[in-house]
């Protein structure tokens, strides 16, 4: 039913011109369309792979990212958590945000100041039991890079803390703490010079002159003395301060210094706890001026120098930046390795209590390869509008309530391996695009050729192939016709060549038949003339010449035939023995001496025995003709082992006499015809036989005579 319906629709459409043209156009370009469709399918698969990487792998990566963020947030809160005295840097983001800052007065919720040694604890006082815990957020550490006298075990930093406490019940004090490596402080004695162990504090305010406060260490007094422990208070000093250039100490500065050997590294440190009444620095006093006091105290610029007897002082100017022992920045950088934004916000407010937005985000994935960066760029574009993962945690701020700490990923959420994989896919897409362009270009050219071929090769298809190709209105059909056209051209060309070859063969055959016929026609009358009596002498001589020429022609064909047989009938032959035997049989001194020089046996070559003898007969006969009478013909044999890959047996036939006129042409057939009544085929025969047995022959004019040299490969395996 459906089939019939589709068929009807197709027939109806087929009647329309545009549809018919479209279908035919498609069929004529089926290869092009097929390739394009294939390319689009490949593109589709690649995009599907890209999407899979981004979506599916990204989903699992998001969960992992959240876990990482949660872990980092907890780390941050752990670092910034409350200390034993209940303080936390979270309480004061204004003062505790930067990791490096200049010395200044900061605000603490509670004071760290106390007198380690008092009348109350004097009896039970032991220096080793004194515990001074300074708030980490307040402490600034200044490295002692210029400490020339620092030993290998000396603490190489000065720690300092200056703080005020809002609504301090004890008054408007500026509390301070110093800790530095000492080498045994010498207590100041009243009335003596202020030079020696101690320190100087410098305070400045905008528009006001700088105030200096020289502080020295004096031994404690007014405490009960123990006879059993006379040095009980050793290492504890009272702070005695002299403001500016005053000669008398001020009671507005109090505190103690403790010098002791630290456990563990056995270094000696001086820890100073002190406080300064704000009135000494011109700050407002009284409970009603607390806010102003705090504001002015925190705006003071601070500097200090620490003097040590016989040692270089430690100097920290107001511009020297120290490293805070605890800070938001440090906690953030330590705990958060991702490029994530940390904010602490109180509910209902828009301004964050603290935010890491001012800190440069870390991106650990920078510096990737070109492909990875390319892939990342594409993935960033794809993930621009997606929600970034984040985690939150409630955090308690003293005096403020509960805030929310939120760590949100700033960078684009891209799976770890995705950028590189995407980069590879993009490279593959680019490669595919180049391929498609090349294909397109090739197909365009192919289409041109196809059209030309179609036009040229509009020929009747052969039976059998017609059903398969010829009737197809496709590119394959067109190509088939083109190829067939080319084949036909080749066939025609081959036919022409064959006809030409046949013509040549027929011509040659006709010439051969003609020669035979001429030979036959000459030989028959010659047969009659040969046996006629009473022929004139000259006629007989000319007839003999004619007969000789005919014999020569016959001999030539016999030599070629015999050379073939010599090659076929070659056997392992002891050429040394053959030459020795031949010489012995043909040596007829004194008028016809033939000598042999060489080994007597065991030089083996592959040669026909009768062929070798025929060669020797020819060479000896030639030598006899040309030699100086009574001089010997010398046959020699040498084996040249140096020739690769086989050794070569060299046979030389020498005779004294006239040299060859042209040794190079001596082996040409008929070269010496008629010189001595011969046919000039002897040396030609020698060369033909040698060539058939892989040998070579040459003629040389040497001193005193001529030499014909045969070179034959020696065989080792006679099997």
């Amino acid at each position: 039913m459906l089939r019939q319906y589709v068929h009807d629709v197709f027939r109806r459409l087929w009647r329309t011109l545009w549809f018919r043209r479209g279908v035919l156009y498609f069929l004529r370009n089926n290869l092009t369309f097929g390739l394009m469709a294939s390319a689009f399918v490949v593109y589709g698969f690649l995009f599907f792979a890209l999407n899979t990487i981004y979506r599916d792998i990204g989903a699992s990566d998001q969960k992992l990212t959240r876990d990482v963020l949660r872990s980092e947030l907890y780390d941050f809160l752990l670092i910034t958590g409350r200390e034993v005295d209940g303080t936390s840097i979270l309480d004061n983001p204004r003062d505790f945000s930067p990791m490096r800052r200049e010395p200044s007065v900061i605000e603490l919720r509670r004071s760290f100041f106390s007198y380690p040694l008092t009348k109350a604890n004097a009896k039970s006082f032991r220096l080793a039991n004194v515990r001074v815990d300074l708030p980490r957020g307040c402490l600034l550490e200044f490295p002692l890079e210029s400490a020339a006298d620092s030993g290998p075990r000396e603490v190489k930093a000065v720690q300092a803390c200056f703080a005020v406490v809002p609504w301090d019940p004890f008054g408007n004090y500026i509390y301070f703490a110093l800790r530095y490596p000492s080498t045994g402080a010498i207590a100041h004695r009243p009335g003596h010079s202020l030079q020696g162990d101690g320190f100087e504090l410098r305070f400045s305010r905008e528009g006001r002159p700088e105030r200096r406060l020289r502080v020295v260490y004096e031994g404690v007094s007014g405490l009960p003395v123990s006879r059993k422990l006379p040095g009980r208070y050793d290492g504890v000093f009272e702070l005695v301060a002299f403001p500016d250039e005053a000669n008398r100490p001020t009671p507005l500065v109090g505190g103690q210094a403790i010098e002791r050997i630290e456990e563990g590294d056995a270094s000696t440190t001086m820890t100073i706890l002190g406080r300064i009444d704000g009135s000494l620095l011109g700050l407002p006093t009284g409970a009603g001026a607390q806010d102003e006091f705090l504001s002015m105290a925190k705006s003071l610029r601070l500097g200090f120098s620490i003097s040590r007897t016989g040692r270089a002082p430690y100097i920290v100017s107001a511009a020297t930046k120290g490293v805070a022992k605890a800070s938001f920045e440090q906690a953030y950088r330590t705990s958060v390795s991702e490029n994530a934004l940390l904010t602490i916000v109180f509910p209902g407010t828009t301004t964050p209590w603290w935010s890491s937005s001012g800190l440069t985000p870390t991106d650990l994935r920078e510096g990737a390869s070109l492909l990875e960066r390319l892939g990342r760029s594409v993935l960033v574009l794809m993930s621009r509008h997606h929600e970034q993962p984040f985690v939150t945690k409630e955090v308690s701020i003293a005096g403020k309530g509960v805030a929310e700490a939120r760590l949100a990923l700033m960078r684009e959420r891209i799976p770890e391996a995705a950028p590189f994989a995407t980069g590879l896919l993009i490279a593959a897409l680019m490669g595919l695009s180049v391929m498609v362009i090349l294909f397109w270009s090739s197909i365009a050219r192919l289409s041109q050729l196809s059209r030309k071929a179609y036009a040229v090769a509009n020929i009747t298809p052969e039976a059998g192939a017609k059903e398969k190709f010829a009737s197809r209105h496709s590119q394959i059909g067109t190509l088939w016709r083109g190829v067939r056209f080319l084949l036909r051209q080749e066939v025609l060309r081959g036919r022409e060549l064959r006809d030409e070859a046949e013509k040549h063969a027929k011509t040659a055959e006709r010439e051969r038949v003609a020669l035979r016929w001429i030979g036959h026609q000459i030989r028959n009358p010659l047969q009659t003339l040969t046996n006629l009596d009473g022929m004139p002498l000259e006629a007989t001589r000319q007839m003999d010449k004619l007969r000789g020429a005919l014999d020569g022609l016959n001999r030539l064909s016999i030599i070629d035939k015999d050379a073939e047989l010599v090659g076929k009938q070659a056997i392992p032959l002891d050429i040394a023995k053959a030459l020795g035997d031949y010489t012995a049989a043909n040596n007829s001194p004194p008028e016809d001496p033939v000598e042999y020089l060489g080994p007597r046996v065991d030089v083996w070559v592959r040669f026909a025995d009768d062929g070798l003898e025929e060669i020797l007969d020819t060479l000896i006969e030639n030598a006899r003709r040309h030699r100086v009478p009574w001089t010997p013909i010398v046959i020699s044999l040498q084996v040249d082992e140096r020739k690769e890959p086989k050794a070569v047996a060299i046979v030389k036939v020498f005779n004294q006499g006239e040299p060859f006129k042209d040794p190079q042409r001596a082996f040409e057939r008929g070269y010496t015809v008629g010189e001595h009544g011969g046919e000039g085929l002897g040396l030609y025969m020698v060369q033909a036989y040698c060539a058939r047995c892989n040998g070579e022959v040459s003629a040389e004019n040497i001193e005193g005579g001529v030499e014909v040299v045969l070179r034959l490969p020696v065989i080792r395996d006679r099997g």
Partner: protein
Amino acid sequence: MVKLRCLIVDDEAEARNSFRSAVLAACHDIEIDEAETYEEAKMAVAHGRYAIALIDCNLKGKDVESFQGLGVARDLSEAGCDVLLISGMTDQSLPIMADDIANAAFLLKPVKTADLTVEIRRTLRNRERRPPPRSELPPGLEIDSVNSHRLIWRGNRVQLGNVPYDITMCLARKHGSLVPYDTLLKCCISGGKGALHSHIRQIKARFELADKDFLAIRNMSGRGYIWES
């Protein structure tokens, strides 16, 4: 006693006269018939019984390549006639065809009357000669019981012309002994050692057709040949 008969077939009268002279020089008591064409020759073969025939391969009026003389020679050979084929054609296959088809000796024109006389005389002599007893021949070599001019080597027939046959028999009868060149050269109609070497090569080639490992005939350098037992 039945008189010997000879048939001369050649399309040229001068050649026939020359051949007649040679035949008569070889044997006075012989009856000679002549034929000028192929048809005359066939007629003669049909009506006469000949001991020897001298036949020109190419007869007048026909294509020079057709070699009608070979057909006549074959018929005569089958009737027990010794045939000498004479031709002016230099085709290398012709002597072999003469051997194979008609068991005939081949002579190339122009041939001197004296040489032809020697050949005819030898043919007639061989005809009268009895084949040697088997015991004189080397192991593996036999004479065909039907045609004494044919040899059998290790069960396979070896076709040889007159001169090669004579050379082979000369070597075979003295197998194991050196046969000097002088003796062997007597078997040749013409030519010297070169022709002899050529004949020997042809003989070896014929025997190799029957036995590819045939190595019985060996050259003794400078002295002659030997049939090694």
